């Protein structure tokens, strides 16, 4: 092999930068996990609010979802990094990553939660109540398990997207995979190995999540097949 992918380039990269890549990989993982937890919490809050009887709650949820679904993630990250310090709010790139990416994907998952709630037929509550279930028993044994099967596959897809989107933090020195790969390439003009490695690392995280999502989806579709008669 020669050029960008010559074998000594790989050897140089792994020997001088392997440890940094590993650190960056772990940092991407931790940003992803924190952002995902934040996104899940926000999505449940705003998803439930979007189905509320209270008009104000519905409006707030709508504004949140529309704002984040229609704004590029990169702009949000830049604004936090470059403009917030001007009004004396200084956040670490790590914190910006967790918060902004959490908010951003929270908006998408909130829509998933909303559709999950909408998809449960009122008759399910009635069938449970008429058998003597309490509200909590109904939620626990009847409603939530059905909601989870519906909501989990698209949520897993969002989780994989979230991991990939942490790469925008490279633009604000986030010290995650993309940033590390890019800085090595920039300083050594050896771009091939770090970028390929970065791609592989993202793939290693995302592929199992997507595969799991597809499996869940297949299971769900089998479970829901022919439920039309019941709605």
């Amino acid at each position, binding site marked *: 092999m020669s050029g960008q992918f010559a074998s000594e380039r790989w050897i140089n990269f792994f020997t001088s930068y392997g440890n940094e890549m590993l650190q960056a990989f772990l940092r991407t993982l931790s940003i992803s996990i924190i952002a995902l937890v934040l996104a899940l919490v926000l999505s449940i809050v705003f998803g439930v609010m979007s189905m509320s009887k209270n008009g104000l709650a519905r409006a707030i949820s709508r504004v949140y979802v529309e704002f984040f679904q229609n704004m590029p993630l990169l702009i949000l990250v830049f604004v936090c990094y470059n403009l917030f310090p001007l009004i004396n709010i200084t956040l670490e790139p790590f914190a910006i990553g967790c918060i902004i990416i959490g908010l951003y994907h929270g908006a998408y998952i909130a829509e998933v939660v909303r559709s999950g709630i909408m998809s449960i037929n009122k008759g*399910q509550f*009635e069938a449970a109540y008429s058998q003597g279930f*309490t509200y909590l028993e109904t939620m626990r044994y009847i409603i939530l398990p059905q909601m989870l099967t519906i909501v989990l596959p698209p949520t897993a897809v969002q989780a994989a997207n979230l991991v990939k989107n942490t790469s925008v933090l490279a633009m604000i020195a986030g010290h995650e995979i993309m940033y590390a790969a890019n800085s090595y390439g920039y300083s050594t003009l050896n771009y091939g190995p770090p970028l390929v490695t970065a791609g592989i690392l993202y793939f290693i995280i995302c592929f199992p999540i997507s595969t799991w999502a597809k499996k869940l989806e297949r299971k769900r579709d089998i*479970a829901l097949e022919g439920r039309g008669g019941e709605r």
Partner: protein
Amino acid sequence: MSMIKTENIHKYFGENHVLNGVDLEIAKSEVVCVVGPSGSGKSTLLRCLNRLERITSGKIYIEGKLIEHRESDKNILKIDPKEVAKMCSELGMVFQRFNLFPHKTALENVTIAQETVKKTSKEIAEKIGLDLLEKVGMAEKANEYPSRLSGGQQQRVAIARALAMEPKIMLFDEPTSALDPELVGGVLEIMKQLALDGMTMMVVTHEMGFAREVGSRLIFMDEGAIIEEGTPDEVFMNPKNDRTRDFFKSIL
């Protein structure tokens, strides 16, 4: 002693006066069929009996015991919620659209309330469940999910599910009107068997054949009130009220 008795029950949905002074009494082992135009309040009446809806005013007795007494949407009777739950579990309900739990197999549909509400052990619940599925001719499909069953099969499982709580009264809300015509007979046959076993039943249905063969009484409802009642043959062959007569003309 009557199994169900209502006194002057009224139900409003907002301005909509849906039940307008219903007095009803059902004796043990009676099979009362209810007919009437769409929107006349038949479903609401059933749903008020087992508290899926709360009445605006009136009284409801189950097995002679007052369990609901309200005026202007306020409780007059204060009653322990546990007592209410127990009374309501004496009423089994079968819905027009089955409402089986789609994430549970046929057998699990029949066992889950036993295990959750009655705290029956899994083993016993399954034994009871299989017996009931056998009774409705669904034992072979015990491990199938509802999505794999026809409408008629789903409704039979739903009947077994309701029976699992050992109700003393069964309420049926148009149990066959969501079914393809060829599947109606099987479900009606099971209901007939239940009636022969002595179950007290209240059945909203437009299956006049069933009402005349199995019903001990036929009630005609219109605009939230009982307009006419009597033996099925009497009401069907010889309706006294013009609205009843028009209704039967319209469904034949």
